[in-house]
């Protein structure tokens, strides 16, 4: 800490002139102020300097007491009761002293008045230093509050988002590393490994060659019965004092971990490690960690709720599929097989995440419109008459109308509406042609046609896989998109279960 003396320099100079005493202030072995350094012997300078050094030699002066010698009078300066230096008066030139102030009678060279003045001055300097120190400490605290506020401001907007991306989480942890002034920050979430983050200050990375294993050990060593665990944290301020932690690293370190949990639901740990033992973890660090961990847990909980909601939609959709399958015995498992093949093709075609998601919904639900078709027609064993066939042909539009109100399905709808369009423009319902037909609909058309031919129907038996594939290849360019048929042929070869329906029944 820098202690400011500027304020006192004029006063010290004046007193020095008035008393004809040389005045010095020493701190931590350094002379930080001298009224007139030229007039002092080297030996005396050295003695003054050493006054404020930690006691080493047996003859060293007592640090916190007034010192009076033949040629030297020293008043200790303390800050918050701790030794912080000395105000030293010395009189190397006896003959020039003004008798009135400096020279005392007998052996004492310093008059009582001079000593009293110096003592009072020392008290004023102490006061001022104490105020400075307090102000700096408060500023330091304020600085920490600013850092905390900054972190809060960064994390709070995330709470409103439902998806906490790895990237955002990483950035957050990086800020943390920064503002906590530690060497390592980690998050360890056993149920959400995609949010496991570990950051080490570059300069310190050699300290921990295998950080993942180190963190494993740190967490494992947390004693479950520690009282602080109830308060959701665990602190080791010096690993050498904790047998369980001492063995983990040859260097002493400090470690702080807080639990990430929400309503008794434990998600994991957020932790800090530092090898700088000159600092310790303060209450304010702990408070900040705990509230950041709370915020993270809220974000994670939100993500879970979002996933649960998503799962609910999936369950609803499954129920819808069971509803059609209950009506049409021959399509049992059909939707799932079509979806399976469609997704294999999507993988091969490197579709985007979003396209795959849309395709997944569209393929599993492509026949949902059959709910609106009478069972007698669906399960008829004889040939369909024209009117009946027209009714069957309405299932894409019916499916579209059924699912339209479901917001998450919106982008899947074209796949359902157009899965019976033909590449040559002779399909239904809108006679779209070629690439006018949405990609996901063209993919579903191939998978759907394959599975329909491969499966038993009310009016015929299914064909074996190889023969079915040949039929499909015969439809390439007319009914089906030739490029996709080619991809399908590849996919069918590599699909380990590619021998057709039997694997899925």
């Amino acid at each position, binding site marked *: 800490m820098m202690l400011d003396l500027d304020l006192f320099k004029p006063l010290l100079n004046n007193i020095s002139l008035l008393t004809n005493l040389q005045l010095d202030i020493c701190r931590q072995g350094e002379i930080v102020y001298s009224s007139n350094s030229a007039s002092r012997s080297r030996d005396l300078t050295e003695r003054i300097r050493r006054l404020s050094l930690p006691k080493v030699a047996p003859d060293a002066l007592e640090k916190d007491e007034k010192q009076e010698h033949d040629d030297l009078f020293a008043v200790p300066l303390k800050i918050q009761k701790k030794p912080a230096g000395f105000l030293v008066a010395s009189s190397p030139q006896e003959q020039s002293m003004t008798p009135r102030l400096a020279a005392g009678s007998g052996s004492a060279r310093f008059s009582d008045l001079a000593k009293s003045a110096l003592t009072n001055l020392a008290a004023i300097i102490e006061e001022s230093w104490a105020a400075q120190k307090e102000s700096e400490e408060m500023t330091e605290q304020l600085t920490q509050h*600013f*850092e905390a506020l900054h972190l809060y401001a960064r994390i709070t907007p995330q709470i409103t988002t439902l998806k906490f991306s790895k990237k955002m989480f990483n950035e957050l942890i990086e*800020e943390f590393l920064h*503002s906590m002034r530690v060497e390592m920050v980690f998050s360890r979430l056993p149920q959400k490994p995609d949010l496991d983050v570990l950051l080490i200050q570059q300069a310190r990375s050699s300290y921990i060659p295998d950080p993942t294993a180190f963190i494993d050990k740190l967490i494992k060593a947390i004693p479950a019965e520690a009282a602080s665990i109830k308060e959701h944290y665990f602190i080791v301020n010096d690993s050498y004092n904790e047998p369980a932690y001492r063995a983990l690293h040859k260097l002493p370190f400090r470690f702080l971990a807080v639990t990430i949990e929400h309503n008794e639901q434990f998600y994991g740990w957020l932790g800090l490690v530092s090898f700088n033992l000159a600092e310790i973890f303060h209450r304010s660090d702990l408070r900040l960690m705990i509230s950041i961990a709370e915020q993270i847990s809220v974000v994670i909980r939100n993500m879970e709720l979002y996933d649960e909601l998503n799962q609910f939609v999936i369950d609803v959709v499954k129920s819808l599929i069971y509803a059609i399958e209950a009506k049409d015995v021959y399509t049992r498992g059909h939707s799932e097989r079509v979806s399976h093949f469609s997704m294999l093709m999507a993988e091969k075609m490197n579709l985007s995440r979003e396209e795959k998601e849309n395709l997944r919904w569209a393929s599993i639900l492509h026949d949902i419109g059959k709910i609106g078709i009478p069972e007698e027609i669906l399960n008829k064993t004889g040939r369909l008459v024209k009117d009946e066939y027209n009714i069957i042909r309405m299932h894409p539009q019916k499916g579209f109308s059924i699912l339209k109100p479901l917001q998450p399905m919106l982008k899947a709808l074209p796949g359902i509406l157009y899965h019976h369009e033909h590449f040559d423009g002779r399909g239904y319902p809108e006679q779209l042609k070629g690439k006018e037909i949405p990609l996901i609909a063209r993919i579903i058309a191939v998978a759907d046609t394959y599975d329909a031919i491969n499966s038993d129907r009310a009016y015929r038996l299914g064909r074996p896989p190889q023969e079915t594939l040949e039929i499909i290849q015969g439809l390439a360019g007319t009914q089906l998109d030739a490029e996709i048929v080619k991809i399908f042929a590849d996919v069918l070869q590599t699909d380990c279960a590619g021998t057709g329906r039997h694997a899925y029944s």
Partner: protein
Amino acid sequence: MEINKKILVIDDEVHVRRVIEIKLKNKGYEVVTAANGLEGLEIIKAQKPDAVITDINMPGMDGEALCRLTDVLKIERPFLTIVMTARISPEERNWISKLKDTQFMEKPFSPSKLLDAINKYFGVE
């Protein structure tokens, strides 16, 4: 250790000035402060700081006016300006991007990040 660079901190909130001042002084920078754009402008002209950290919303002359006025001075004597603002708007981003040697930092700011930005500009470790 002392770093021979003078930094001007302009903010109407005294505790913000104080925190930045101490953070920079502890690193060894020389720091001067001002409570608004007008005071800041006078110090920039008279004391020629090597970097200016300024808030945007201030009574009297605001940070934007100050930045636009001082941009001309940078032709002869370049210096860094860091503009601090809560929730930067596209318009703000736009005018800031057009000024020489001008960066922005979002409020609430991180004192250590601010120090890093200054150190980086001056090549201080």
